[in-house]
């Protein structure tokens, strides 16, 4: 199982690694640098997750730890491709959308078998989609199919999804866990226990569920009968997913060679250390994710736009980017629609981007705007809520307090856990002053960042509008674009909304960091894109012997 732990080691001199700085090996976007060699079947890789997975039932895979196993076992009708900016066929070999955007017709691939050898049928697909939509199940991804009215199978290789209203984003749901195909008989046999460690799951994916020891690891083994061997994989005999909550143990594991693959859960203060391991490659996967500071814009003094702009000018975004993120972590100007999200109409978006205010640090301007706001004195004693388990989030919080001190304003820290931060960021949005937050779109679409964070309908509990931001002009544009299928018109509306938001400065966008990916040099062929959490990461991975 685990490889012998007496691998390569060397004494580590204190502090020397800091002097080395960070020299990242940024491979071609979205992939790990390939070294020459022919893929060969066999071998095992061990990867680390930071917490116990929720389930291997796709209905409950909506986090950053469950998907490694789930998305290797079960698969969706479609798949994200072209570096996760487009949709490609998967279990559906073809699909089309009616002109009114109300009917999606999927042609189902023949000859796909579940892991127990039985064929996948259209009945399984209808069952899977209806199961996710059923409120009784309480699926975490059920909302993605909220506008679906009906799912039918007119013949043995066609599935038709009928919408109650057009929904620009539903197409992406068909490539997410919301459209993973489960085996009806297996799910019905196990009921509530489906997806738990004792029962596991079966699907059509490249790897089969083998075991899950609670608190310790999950093991997947190769599906030799996999339907899609277009790229030669799956190659690996097995994938071991270790549950390792402590970041330093993950780093130590990379160093000793006990761990081959660490994605996302590598804190930025470990980059320099990992960079120093000669047998480990560290790369950064472009993301749709960003970190920012926001405040409750519904209450004084944060309802004052001048004051908000002053705060935006006060923060040293460049300094934070350099210290707490990977190399070349991009500037974001006053928006959270990052260039990575321009999956259509790129020229329109680029022109809009050029016109956006950048809010680079300018303390004089910040002072002046504070003065003009006339409510600067109300800032004193306000608190900033942030959690410490992510170095950049902690660093942003501490920097904000420090820089406000330079402006003569006292801001207090409100240290919270990651979970409490989530409860604040997705609660009723009325129980904090300032908060350091984060968000990443689920889909390759600017709307995936704009609507959840800035539409006033998302202020209520469960929504992501942590700024409690309300602007009717923004609301109408964001709502309208969602009912359209013409991306040029959608982009125009979203760009108008974006300009209004940037001027209003409801949040201070810090950066759009890449997902860190550390792999042992023997790991080859990993395809990791911005939406890695929806993907089957190990399908074509192989190891040099």
């Amino acid at each position, binding site marked *: 199982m685990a490889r012998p732990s*007496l691998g390569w080691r060397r004494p580590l001199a204190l502090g020397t690694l800091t002097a080395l700085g960070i020299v990242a090996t940024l491979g071609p976007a979205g992939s790990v640098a390939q070294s020459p060699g022919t893929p060969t079947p066999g071998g095992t890789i061990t990867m680390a997750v930071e917490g116990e997975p*929720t389930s291997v039932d796709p209905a409950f895979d909506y986090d950053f730890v469950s998907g490694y196993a789930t998305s290797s076992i079960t698969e969706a009708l479609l798949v994200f491709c072209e570096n996760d900016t487009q949709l490609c066929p998967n279990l559906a070999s073809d699909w089309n959308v009616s002109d009114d955007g109300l009917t999606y017709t999927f042609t189902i691939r023949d000859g796909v078998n579940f892991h127990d050898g039985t064929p996948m049928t259209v009945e399984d697909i209808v069952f899977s989609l209806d199961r996710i939509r059923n409120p009784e199940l309480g699926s*975490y991804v059920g909302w993605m199919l909220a506008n679906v009215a009906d799912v039918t199978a007119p013949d043995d290789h066609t599935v038709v999804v009928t919408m109650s209203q057009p929904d620009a984003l539903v197409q992406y749901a068909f490539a997410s866990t919301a459209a993973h195909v489960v085996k009806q008989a297996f799910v019905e046999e196990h009921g*509530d226990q489906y997806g738990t460690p*004792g029962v596991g799951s079966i699907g059509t994916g490249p790897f089969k569920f083998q075991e899950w020891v609670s608190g310790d690891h999950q093991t997947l083994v190769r599906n030799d009968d996999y339907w899609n061997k277009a790229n030669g994989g799956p190659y690996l005999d097995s994938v071991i997913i270790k549950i390792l909550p402590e970041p330093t143990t993950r780093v130590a594991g990379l160093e000793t060679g006990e761990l081959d693959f660490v994605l996302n859960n590598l804190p930025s203060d470990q980059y320099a250390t990992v960079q120093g391991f000669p047998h480990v490659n560290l790369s950064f996967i472009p993301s749709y994710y960003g970190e920012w500071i926001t405040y409750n814009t519904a209450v004084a003094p944060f309802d004052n736009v001048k004051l908000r702009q002053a705060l935006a000018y006060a923060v040293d975004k460049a300094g934070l980017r350099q210290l707490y993120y990977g190399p070349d972590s991009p500037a974001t100007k006053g928006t959270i629609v990052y260039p990575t999200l321009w999956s259509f109409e790129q020229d329109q978006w680029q022109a809009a981007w050029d016109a956006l205010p950048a809010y680079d640090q300018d303390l004089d301007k910040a002072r002046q705007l504070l003065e003009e706001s006339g409510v600067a004195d109300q800032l004193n004693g306000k608190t900033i809520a942030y959690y410490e388990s992510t170095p950049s989030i902690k660093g942003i919080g501490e920097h904000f307090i420090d820089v406000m001190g330079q402006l003569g304003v006292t801001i207090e820290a409100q240290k919270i856990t990651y979970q409490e931060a989530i409860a604040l960021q*997705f609660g009723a949005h009325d129980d904090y002053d300032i908060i350091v937050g984060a968000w990443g779109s689920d889909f390759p679409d600017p709307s995936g960042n704009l609507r959840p964070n800035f539409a006033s309908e998302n202020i209520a509990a*469960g929504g992501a509008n942590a700024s409690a931001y309300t602007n009717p002009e923004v609301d109408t544009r964001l709502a309208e674009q969602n009912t359209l299928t013409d991306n040029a018109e959608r982009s125009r509306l979203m760009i108008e909304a974006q300009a209004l938001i940037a001027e209003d400065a409801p949040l201070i966008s810090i950066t759009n960091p890449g997902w860190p990916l550390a792999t042992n040099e023997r790991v080859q062929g990993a395809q990791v894109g911005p939406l890695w959490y929806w993907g089957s990461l190990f399908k074509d991975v192989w190891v040099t012997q």
Partner: protein
Amino acid sequence: MAAYAARRLLAAIPILLVVSFVTFGLIRLAPGDPVLIVLGGRRVDPELIVQLRTRFGLDGDPITQYFAWLGRAVQLDFGTSYKLRQEVGDLILARLPTTVELVALSVLLAIAIGIPLGVLQARRRETAVDYAGSFIAFVGVSSPVYFTAILGVLVFAVWLGILPAFGSGSDPLDQLRHLILPAVALALGMIALTSRMTRSAMIEVLASDYIEAARAKGLPERTILIKHGLRNALIPVLTVISLQVGFLVVGTVLVEHTLGLGGLGSLITDAIQNRDYPIIQASVLMLTFLFVLLNLVTDLLYGLIDPRIRYT
């Protein structure tokens, strides 16, 4: 004695009730909605929030919720974890072995190192060896487990590379290797207590008449020390060790947190952060019961050791 034990266990019932009620009250008062935390910081449907709240039994007034929980708990039904979607009983059983192995290894270490050290100190009383032993004991008892665990990883896993940094290992021998670092960190305080207890008990015993008699008979020093001395000194030492086991169990919370071991301790601390009420209530109750049980066992041990103690 059986009647005494039964009465003591009965007396534990109100304690368990108080503890369960306090736990319930505290965690319900804690800020942070478990439903939002379970949904994990991505997009949420308001209807789903309502639906999960019902499923988790978080509707209605807390007192009714408490009695509903209590009614199921007495039937050993502790419900399903909110976050992990597994039966709480199964979860605890799955995590228990790691914690038990860790505690057992720590106790073994305390006995294997602490007792010989104490004997040696007693034998070489007020020599450099004795002072050095006392000093080590003081440092041991003053070491924060979370610091020694980190130090251990740094020195033995990263610098020297002779022990694995994390994980639980595959085969039994490998598992043992993986447990050494956390067990040593956990055992340090107990090694210190054991050695000092052994030392003072041995000094007492070695000063007694029958040891004088044995010496007068000309028995070899080793026989006197081990057969007559240690055997009698061991009794109070073992009592102290049994008393400490309860603290070791709680100490594993810190070690598991520091070294990322998936035992009961990390299950509980994660559950508190996740506001996973069913896990918190069940595991706090279980640990409390364990405390009460250890307490009773220790008291009964006193009786076995010293027949003059009567249980009334």
